């Protein structure tokens, strides 16, 4: 299967690989997927007092599309407010990376990772967790 240029670019030059201190109150961590399924994404956000995401980091175990989806997600998250981040849809990722149908699950996983990181942040800061849509893959 041929990968799009954007997937290859993210794979070769992944943005924002790394780890934020998950013990900090203003850091939200989302860990989604499962090793048995061949992809696990960990996405972290750091949020300032104005609810703006100032930093985002990821680590992903998975195929090139999974790595690219999470790398792209961290790029998009930086500078967005938490509410804006919630609006990121997996289909935006599919479109941006030109993912083929068999790789749509990678984008779904990235969306789940964003929502899961935001929820972790919310719960840490005394806010109720948002309803998580069941991943459909």
């Amino acid at each position, binding site marked *: 299967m041929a990968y799009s240029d954007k997937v290859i670019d993210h794979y070769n030059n992944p943005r924002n690989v790394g780890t934020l201190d998950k013990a900090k109150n203003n850091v939200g961590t989302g860990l989604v*997927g499962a090793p*048995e399924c*061949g*992809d696990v994404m960990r996405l972290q956000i750091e949020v300032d007092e104005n609810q703006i995401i100032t930093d985002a980091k990821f680590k992903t*175990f998975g*195929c090139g599309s*999974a*790595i690219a989806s999470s790398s792209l997600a961290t790029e998009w998250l930086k500078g967005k407010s938490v509410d804006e981040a919630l609006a990121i849809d997996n289909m935006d990722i599919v479109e941006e990376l030109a993912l083929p149908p068999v*790789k749509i699950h990678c984008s779904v996983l990235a969306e789940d990772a964003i929502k899961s990181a935001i929820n972790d942040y919310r719960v840490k800061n005394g806010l109720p967790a948002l309803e998580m849509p069941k991943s459909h*893959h």
Partner: protein
Amino acid sequence: MLTFPIYLDNNATTPLDPRVLEAMMPYFTGKFGNAASRNHAFGWHAEEAVDYAREQIASLINCSPKEIIFTSGATESDNLAIKGVFEMYASKGNHIITATTEHKAVLDTCKHIEKIGGKVTYLPVNAEGLIDLKQLEEAITDKTILISIMYGNNEVGVIQPIREISKIAKKHGVLFFTDATQAVGKIPVDVEADGIDLMAFSGHKMYGPKGVGALYVRRKNPRVKVTAQMDGGGHERGMRSGTLNVPGIVGLGKACEIAKQDMEKDTARLSAMRDRLERELLTIEESYVNGSREHRLPHVTNISFKYVEGEGLMMGVKDIAVSSGSACTSASLEPSYVLKALGLSDDLAHSSLRFGLSRFTTDEEVDYAISHVKEAVAKLREMSPLWEMFKEGIDLNSIEWAEH
């Protein structure tokens, strides 16, 4: 000088040996006759060429030229053997014994047999990839007509105890068929000494052309017959109709002749090269060889690099062509059933790469592959949350992974 990408996927297919191509060339144009044309020179030349190929093949596997049935490849040979025996020996019984690590051409044919009223036992394998002979013998009933166990496995290269299997088959009066696609031309295969009744193999796995294969069908002790699965002009002693693929058959014959002549030299070189590749790659932390290292084809190794996903890894080693036990592209997301049958957990199966060397692989190419894989694994582990957890001493089994 290295040319990229480097081909290390020789269990999928091999390049045609130039000597084979040379032998085939005249049979596309000048000597284009139909081997079944009995009334002119064009036909005679074609028939002569086919007969010669039969001898070359028979000499490699130690059978009579009359025992070779030409087909379009190993998949067809597998189908013809299993379905053909099932039909021909219907009055004797309807039970077939095979193993879970067989190629899909055997497994799916067996599933078809089950749909049309047959019974199939799928033997498990141990962590080495080998079947249990006691289990095999216990599975035999008075309805058993066929044991179908592959010679060498395509994914891990494991060689089954063929002679012991055939002894058990003989003792119980059951026919023994082996899919020897990965073995013929690579290791000595002798249908007499091995006690094989039917055997499938193909040209393109041994530096021959694609689209041609053969089924060996024993004619003596016992005389074996299969019901044709392709009806028509009654070619190949009525077992496989269809105009013979003369250039392909000439190529298969030549490939067998070269295999016989070069086997000792090729095997010694390939196993030394494979062992070096394996030894070097095993210096990578948390890497494991899959399947038996003792009973194995000389040119294959299958290695799992824990905490790195196979398809992602293949993308990282794009300058080398290998294959992975991960199946992230398939709708099911299921990793290799062969690796799972060996008892590998899904995550280790997802983390595997298969390397298949060939007669044409060079030391320089292997050197490149070693450093390229080492770099890619290191880079991907840097990005892997699982690797980070492992390094922090977190037990991955203690984590409740999301339903996915």
